[in-house]
């Protein structure tokens, strides 16, 4: 099945309200999947012979809180990029969640590749994937606080290992800005 | 050794009244001489190895330091002696300190029965070959001690691997030497060399008998394995175990391991030459008609020449082959080398009976 619109209507007919908006204006069009239906839709996308999206390319966690004025502004989002290997068809869909309740069902057993991508999204954006077998920080050290790819993230003042072996002052003013200030003086 | 002692007593009659003391001092001096010789040989070998490695890898190797880079090993030795000697906190301190000396002891003691020339041998034991086989495995005790005492899992794996490796490879190496002993009719290393007298290469042990020819390769492979050379350098496999048993060692103690390793390369080559390739038997026989004293020197040269070629072979193998895996290592030993060695032994027996 070719074309995002065909796939969209096909899925819409199958799942109805489970499929949200379709963004055709975007350079790579995408549609929304409601998080309640994510697992059914994902299984369907993978197993349906017409669709057959067996290959998960990536999951991007996005914080839409400072985006332009759209419906989903202020929400967190997981973007799933899929391939169909036989004809290299690409598909993007998104799952939006409120910032206060950032829980998305995990799809790690549907696409095994999702296991680490979900951990990364949890680490950097803070989306919690329900049912994930091992949801820990992956890139940052386990004692790290905060999720750096959130738009309102502030770098901590110092970094210290839990045993106190290493303590480093992390905060340092922006060199460009500092120069400007000293120039003004 | 005994000759030297008798000669001393004869030349200096005043020493006759202090025979024990003389013997003791002589022991010490000779011991130090052997140590120095071992150190120089091992040091030169490190230079040789680096040079060979560099040429194989289209590099230059050490050239800047002087004498064409030859004194590189002196600099390395000075550096290692001056380094801080770290003994980590949780190690078994006694074993940790002792291990390098054990490792070197194994290498150093084998020099005792190594016939450099017809007259130049420290002790012509009548069980020389047996002694060599026994003593050369002391090294593994050192390695095992180091691995155990280091309180480091990588070291421990290295030590255990080494133990398993040597226990296995002792068998084929001993079995591969037996045909030679049978042929020579003696366990003395000098006798083995004397049994290979002749003016050309085909009097050497290796060419006297097709079975011994195969035995040579069994011996050579087993010795490579016993001395932890690539492709069998599993105890210190750099890419797997960081540096294996010597991971925690620094400074002088590491230098001892280093020394032991390179002494072993020399020992391995020297014994391969002694047992199979004619030892000090002069190259081209004595057809060159050289005067009396030069004969000994020619023999000495022949021995070192052949040994150098063997060393070169060992080093070339080291720098071209990848490493085997531990189960393959064991498989090679028990499935191939041991049966072949037995076959050779019986083959030689039949050959001699017929």
């Amino acid at each position, binding site marked *: 099945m070719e074309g995002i619109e065909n796939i969209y209507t096909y899925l819409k007919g199958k799942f109805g309200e489970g499929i949200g908006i379709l963004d055709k204006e975007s350079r790579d069009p995408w549609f929304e999947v409601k998080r309640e239906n994510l697992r059914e839709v994902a299984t369907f996308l993978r197993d349906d012979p017409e669709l057959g999206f067996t290959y998960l390319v990536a999951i991007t966690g996005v914080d839409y809180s400072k985006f332009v004025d759209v419906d989903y502004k202020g929400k967190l989002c997981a973007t799933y990029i899929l391939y169909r290997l036989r004809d290299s068809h690409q598909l993007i869909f998104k799952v939006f969640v409120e910032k206060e309740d950032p829980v998305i069902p995990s799809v790690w057993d549907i696409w095994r590749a999702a296991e680490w991508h979900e951990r990364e999204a949890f680490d950097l954006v803070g989306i919690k994937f329900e049912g994930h077998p091992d949801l820990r920080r992956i890139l940052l050290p386990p004692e790290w606080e905060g999720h750096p790819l959130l738009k309102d993230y502030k770098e901590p003042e110092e970094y210290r290992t839990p045993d106190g072996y290493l303590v*480093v002052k992390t905060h340092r003013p922006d060199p460009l800005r500092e120069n400007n200030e000293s120039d003004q003086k | 050794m005994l000759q030297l002692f008798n000669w001393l007593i004869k030349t200096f009659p005043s020493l006759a009244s202090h025979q024990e003391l003389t013997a003791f001092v002589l022991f010490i001096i000779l011991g130090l001489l052997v140590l120095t010789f071992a150190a120089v040989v091992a040091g030169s070998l490190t230079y040789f190895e680096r040079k060979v490695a560099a040429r194989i890898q289209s*590099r230059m190797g050490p050239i800047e330091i002087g004498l064409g880079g030859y004194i590189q090993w002196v*600099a390395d030795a000075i550096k290692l002696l001056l380094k801080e000697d770290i003994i980590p906190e949780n190690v078994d301190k006694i074993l940790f300190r002792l291990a390098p000396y054990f490792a070197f002891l194994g290498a150093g003691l084998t020099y005792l029965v190594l016939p450099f020339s017809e007259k130049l041998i420290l002790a012509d034991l009548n069980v020389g070959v047996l002694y060599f086989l026994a003593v050369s495995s002391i090294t593994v005790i050192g390695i095992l001690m180091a691995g155990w005492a280091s309180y480091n899992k990588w070291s421990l794996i290295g030590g255990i691997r080494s133990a398993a490796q040597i226990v296995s490879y002792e068998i084929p190496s001993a079995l591969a030497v037996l045909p030679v002993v049978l042929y020579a009719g003696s366990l003395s290393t000098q006798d083995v060399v004397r049994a290979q007298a002749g003016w050309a290469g085909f009097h050497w042990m290796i060419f006297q008998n097709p079975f011994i020819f195969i035995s040579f390769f069994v011996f050579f492979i087993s010795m490579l394995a016993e001395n932890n050379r690539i492709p069998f350098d599993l105890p210190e496999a750099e890419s797997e175990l960081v540096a294996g048993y*010597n991971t925690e060692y620094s400074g002088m103690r*590491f230098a001892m391991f280093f020394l032991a390793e390179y002494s072993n390369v020399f020992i391995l080559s020297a014994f391969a030459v002694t047992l199979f390739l004619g030892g000090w038997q002069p190259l081209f026989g004595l057809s060159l008609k050289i005067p009396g004293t030069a004969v000994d020197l020619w023999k000495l040269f022949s021995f070192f020449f052949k040994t150098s070629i063997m060393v070169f072979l060992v080093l070339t193998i080291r720098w071209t082959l990848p490493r085997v895996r531990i189960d393959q290592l064991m498989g090679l030993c028990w499935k191939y080398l041991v049966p072949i060695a037995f076959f050779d032994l019986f083959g030689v027996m039949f050959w001699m009976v017929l």
Partner: protein
Amino acid sequence: MAGRYKEGVENIPIEQIADALFPEVILTTVDDFLNWGRSWSVWYLLFATACCGIELMQFGGPRTDADRIGSVFRATPRQADLMIVAGTITYKMASRVKLLYEQMAEPKYVISMGACANCGGPFWYSYSVLRGIDKVIPVDFYIAGCPPRPEALLQGVIEVQKKIKKEKYLRAKKSEAGG
């Protein structure tokens, strides 16, 4: 230099003291000899984290050939004299860098290779990158570049050699022992 003079005798030129004190001369000569040995055998720790690591490998490769000046790599910090920190160090890695440095045996030297190790380089703005390894370990030489060429690293090692040759190994030992 400060350690060579006793209180109140600063005015005497160094040559006179050396002439007067025979052992000093011997010490100096021995020192020179020891430093010669140490400087020609600088073994470096293979510690490559990022881009500079590739140039560190090239440094040991056929064109630059670190072995020429007696430098070979060691995998374990215990046997290394020189730690070449090649690449970005993150906070997660920083404690390991410190640990590795502490595991090295004295005397030890550190070269900070490339912009990232010097000051964070292009990752200055990052939330997770240590802005210069001198925040956690002492550094002897900094090599600029992103990444530096292997030749620059070779020059760095030669500078380490020069530094070693100027050191007073025995004197340092004596002064330590004396208190």
